[in-house]
């Protein structure tokens, strides 16, 4: 009787062990490994133009529309004109090197005491020669390239002498669109 009991107990133990193993197997961890790249960044370009009057330093044009002051002209007599060459440069820094700009040049506006007697116009030079009116209001600048704009001011012949020494402010707007 003792022997039978012992055998029976042993068999039960064996079954329990097998069941136990079966349950634990579902929670066993598998091998795994991980790897990652370095942190990656992407930088965007600056889309910008600069403008430079003769004898002065170039100034960056702000996308916020803030005015840039350029050196003016002096000693203009009634019935005479003066032309100022302005060099416009596409200073964008795209990695492709192909960030062109289609530039729209607005008409100049005059304010101040001489407004009624001061005529202005702006045009693109033939190369750098402002004596020749090459093209009107829009020009295309490839990245890194420049063009010369010519601002011509003419004081009317009938400007009164009382305006001698007076000044005027001339403004014009430039617009740029990515091109192509």
């Amino acid at each position, binding site marked *: 009787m003792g022997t039978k009991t012992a055998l029976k107990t042993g068999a039960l133990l064996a079954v329990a062990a097998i069941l136990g*193993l079966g349950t634990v*197997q579902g929670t*066993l961890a*598998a*091998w*795994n*490994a*991980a*790897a*990652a*790249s*370095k*942190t*990656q*960044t*992407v*930088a*965007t*370009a*600056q*889309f910008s133009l600069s403008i430079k009057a003769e004898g002065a330093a170039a100034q960056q044009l702000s*996308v916020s529309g803030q005015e840039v002051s350029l050196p003016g002209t002096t000693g203009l007599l009634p019935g005479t004109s003066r032309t100022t060459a302005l060099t416009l440069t596409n200073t*964008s*820094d*795209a*990695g*492709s090197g192909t*960030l062109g700009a289609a530039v729209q040049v607005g008409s100049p506006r005059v304010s101040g005491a001489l407004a009624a007697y001061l005529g202005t116009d702006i045009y693109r030079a033939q190369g750098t020669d402002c004596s020749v009116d090459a093209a009107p209001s829009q020009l295309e600048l490839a990245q890194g390239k420049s063009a010369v704009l010519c601002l011509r001011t003419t004081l009317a012949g009938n400007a009164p002498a009382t305006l001698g020494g007076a000044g005027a402010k001339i403004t014009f707007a430039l617009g740029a669109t*990515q091109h192509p």
Partner: protein
Amino acid sequence: MNKMTKGALATGLGVALLLGGGGTLAVWNSTVEANAGKIVTGDLELTAGQGTWSNASGQTIDPSTYKVVPGDQLRFSQPVTVELTGEQMRASLTVSDKLASSASYLSVANPVLTDVHGATVPAELVPASSGVYTASVLVTFPASTTGTTGAHTTNDLGKIGFKLEQNAPTNPTS
């Protein structure tokens, strides 16, 4: 004589009885050793290589100096080397972390994981599958971007991560 015989018989019987008790005497035994041989474990390794960037023309570029504009599309390629060893070794290779941009003007696509032949990575790798796999990610600066949105900025895209995980054998040893 009879007494002696009787005593001897008694003695012999007593001895015989002791022998029959058995439970306290040593029984014959023998031992032998067998060489079961060595068990060598398999292996599972994953190593990231050097990632590279290229532009739409397929030229390799340096993202720290190559500045994108609306209409640009860059591709990031990150290789990983998988090594699997073991008769029952089966594993799955997945992308665990993706590149992403918090900037709304940049579009970062989901990674595409391929083998050296450009084929999609199998759902289950075996030791014969060991080799280089590449995750490819397309980053686009849409041409429809207006104004100066996103101009002159640096965008952190994070890291791309990989996980190689063993698939449990279907017939484990018991």
